[in-house]
C-alpha cells in the first residue's frame, strides 16, 4: 500500500483512516478540507482517471458519504477516496480543478443528493430541470407526491406538485 503511505505523508492531517475495500482496493477516508490537496497529490502520483463519484446517503448516521474511484492507467492501480459530510449542510470542496471529469459528476451528485461542491464553477442541476425542489436520491425524499414539469408563459420549465397534495 505504498500509495496510501505516499499520500499520508503529503497530508497527514487530512487522512482519517487508511485501509482497503472489501475487494482489496486501497481505501482512504479523508477529511473534507483536505480533499483537494490529497486529490492533487493522487493525480501527481499518476491517478489521472477519475472513474466515478458516488454519493451515498446514510440517514441513520446523519451523513452523506462521497466516494471517489480513481485509476492509474500506467500502473493499472486503483484507489478509493471517501469523504463524509453532514446531511443538513452537505458541503465538500470540489475536485474539478484536478480532474475535469468531476465537472459533470459533481453536478450530478449535487442534483440528486444535494451536496454542494465549493469551488465548482458551474454548480447547477444537470439531470433534473432547474426549478426542481428536493434531492431525489436522499432516503427521505417523498416519492408518493406527484411532481411534473410543464411550460410556463415564457416557455420556461415550471415544476409543480399534484394539485391535491398542494405545494
Amino acid at each position: 500500500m505504498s500509495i496510501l503511505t505516499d499520500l499520508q505523508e503529503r497530508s497527514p492531517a487530512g487522512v482519517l483512516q487508511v485501509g482497503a475495500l472489501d475487494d482489496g482496493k486501497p481505501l482512504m477516508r479523508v477529511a473534507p478540507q483536505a480533499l483537494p490537496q490529497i486529490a492533487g497529490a493522487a493525480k501527481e502520483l499518476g491517478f489521472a482517471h477519475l472513474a466515478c463519484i458516488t454519493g451515498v446517503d446514510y440517514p441513520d448516521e446523519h451523513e452523506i458519504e462521497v466516494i471517489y474511484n480513481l485509476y492509474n492507467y500506467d500502473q493499472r492501480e486503483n484507489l478509493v477516496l471517501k469523504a463524509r459530510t453532514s446531511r443538513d449542510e452537505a458541503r465538500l470542496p470540489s475536485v474539478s480543478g484536478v480532474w475535469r471529469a468531476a465537472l459533470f459528476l459533481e453536478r450530478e451528485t449535487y442534483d440528486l443528493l444535494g451536496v454542494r461542491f465549493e469551488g465548482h464553477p458551474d454548480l447547477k442541476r444537470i439531470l433534473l430541470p432547474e426549478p426542481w425542489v428536493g434531492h431525489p436520491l436522499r432516503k427521505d425524499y417523498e416519492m408518493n407526491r406527484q411532481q411534473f414539469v410543464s411550460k410556463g408563459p415564457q416557455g420556461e420549465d415550471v415544476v409543480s406538485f399534484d394539485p391535491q397534495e398542494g405545494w
Partner: protein
Amino acid sequence: MAAYQPYTLEAHPEQSDWITLNMGPQHPSTHGVLRLILQLDGEMVRQVEPVIGYLHRSMEKMAENVRYPHFIIECDRADYMANYHYEAAYVRAVEEVAGIAPTPRAQFIRTICLEFDRIQSHLVWLGTYGLDLGALNAFWYGFREREKILDLLQELTGVRMHPNYFRFGGIKADLTPDFERKALALCDLVERKADEYEDFLSRSDTFVMRTQGVGPMPREMAIDWGVTGPNARASGLDFDLRRDEPYFAYGELDFEVPVRTEGDCYARYVVRMEEVRQSVRLIRQALDQLPQGPIIPAGLEKGYQFLVHPTGEHYAHVEEPRGEIGIYLVGDGSTFPYRVKMRSPCFQNLSVLPELMRDCLIADCVAINGSLDLVMGCVDR
C-alpha cells in the same frame, strides 16, 4: 491547471451579434433528446452548452426500491444500444460482492453475447454517422447486418432488445442447438461487410474531408475529462478493460486493441471499424473454446436468485462500445440494494463536447456529435 470557465453572456459583452441556436431536443442528428445551446458567430460555433436530463428515468432511485434480480431488467434500459453490457456490469458487481463464482460455460456465452452486442452497436453508429454526414446509404448497410445479429440474439434470448438474459452466476438459458453454426456464418458475413463499409466510406474523399482533422482530442484532454472507450483509444490512450482488467472469458482470449493517435473524427471511425473485426475474432475464439457444463451454479436457478443479499461495496466495470460502464454497488444485506451508482460512459463523453466544438462550423458540430457515439439513455439513466 487553469480553472474551468463556463460561458455566460455577461462575461462576453463583445458578442452582441452572436445568435443563440437551439440544436434542440428534437433534431435529426442529436441522436436522442440532447439539447445543445449553440452560440453562433455566423457559421462558426463559439460556445456550446449541453442540456441533458430529458430521458432521466431515475434508475438509481428505482434500484433502491426493487429487489436485486429485478434490477437486471431495469438496468438494460439505460443504454438501449448496448443492453448486454449494462446487465454484465450489474451482474458482475453483485457477483463480486456476494462472492458468487459464475460457471465457465456461462462466462464464455456471456462473452459471445457482449461481442455481438458490440458489433451491432458499432453498426448502428456507422449507419447513423454516415446519414448525418449525408452518405445516405450507410444507414441501410449498417442496419442490414444488424438485423441478422439481432435475429441471432433473438433466438438466444427471446427478444431483440432489453434481453434480461444475465443472471447472478450465469445466464438464463443455454445456446440453441443451431447457434454455433449460425454464429460462425454471421461472423464471416460481418467480416466481409466490414470491408465493404470501410470501402464505401474511407475511399470517399468527401467523407475523409469531413472527418479528418475535425474535433481533435489530445490524449491528456481525453484522460482528464474522463473519456473512455473508442473515443479515448482514438486519442492515443492504449487501454481496454477487456485486455487490461479482464473479466468474464476475456482473459483467455487473444485479440488486439486498435489505438490511433490523431484523435479526430476519422480516427474514431477507424478505431470502431477495427473493433468490429476484433469482435469477430473474439467470437470465433470463444465459440471454439466453449466449455461444457452448467450455465448457472446449483442453488441459484430461477427463484433462488432472490436469495442473493450481498453486503459490502464494490465498483465493477465493463468495457462497453462507448467506454467504461461502472456500477458502484453498496449492499447492506437486505433484499433491496442500498445504493447503485451507474457510471455512464456517455455522460463523461458528453462533458468533453463543448471543448471539442470550440470554433468549429455547424457542419462540424454534427460530425463531432456523431463521432462521440452518444446514447442519451446512457447519459440520463
